[in-house]
């Protein structure tokens, strides 16, 4: 059981680190948004799963409460994070930022 927890927390830290590297290395708003949001959502999902399994496997009333509250926090995170990033992408396009190396821009106005 301890090995499973280490693996879950390790996957979470790895993907959150990949999200931060994507935030630094990508050339554009949209690619940065893509990398950072997806990787941090996935990594936070795995760290929260690690905490949930830790709570349920330890047992007792306090730890079960901790696990159930973590499930609620995970659901809140999974609903709000992609919605917010979608709103950011839409606002970035509307405010005049264009994709840097794009070949086709299908959202562009037809003349």
């Amino acid at each position, binding site marked *: 059981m301890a090995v499973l927890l280490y693996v879950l927390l390790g996957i979470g830290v790895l993907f959150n680190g990949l999200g931060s590297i994507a935030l630094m290395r990508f050339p554009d708003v949209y690619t940065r948004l893509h990398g950072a949001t997806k990787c941090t959502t996935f990594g936070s999902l795995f760290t929260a799963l690690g905490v949930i399994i830790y709570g349920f496997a330890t047992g007792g009333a306090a730890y079960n409460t901790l696990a159930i509250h973590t499930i609620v926090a995970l659901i809140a995170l999974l609903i709000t994070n992609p919605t917010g*990033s979608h709103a950011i992408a*839409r606002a970035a396009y509307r405010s005049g930022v264009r994709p840097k190396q794009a070949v086709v821009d299908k959202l562009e106005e037809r003349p």
Partner: protein
Amino acid sequence: MIIGSLTFFVVAACFAVFMIVSILRIGLGPTVADRVVGLDTINTLIVASMIVLGAAFDQVVFIDVAIIYALLSFVGTLYVAKYLEGGL
């Protein structure tokens, strides 16, 4: 107590390092949207590290803080996006 609390502290320290990298992006970012992306990343990392710290200290209050922080940061992100769009 399957694994010690030191593991959770190490994970939270890694998240703090990633937050510092995101702060660099907020400082460097050429456009406003880049800075908003960095802020959104920091919000997600804060929620994740609050969950991990709740497991480290064995306190449920930290995870309640994480729930409220996730919902409020979502509202904040939506308002900043609305302002960038020009509708506010």
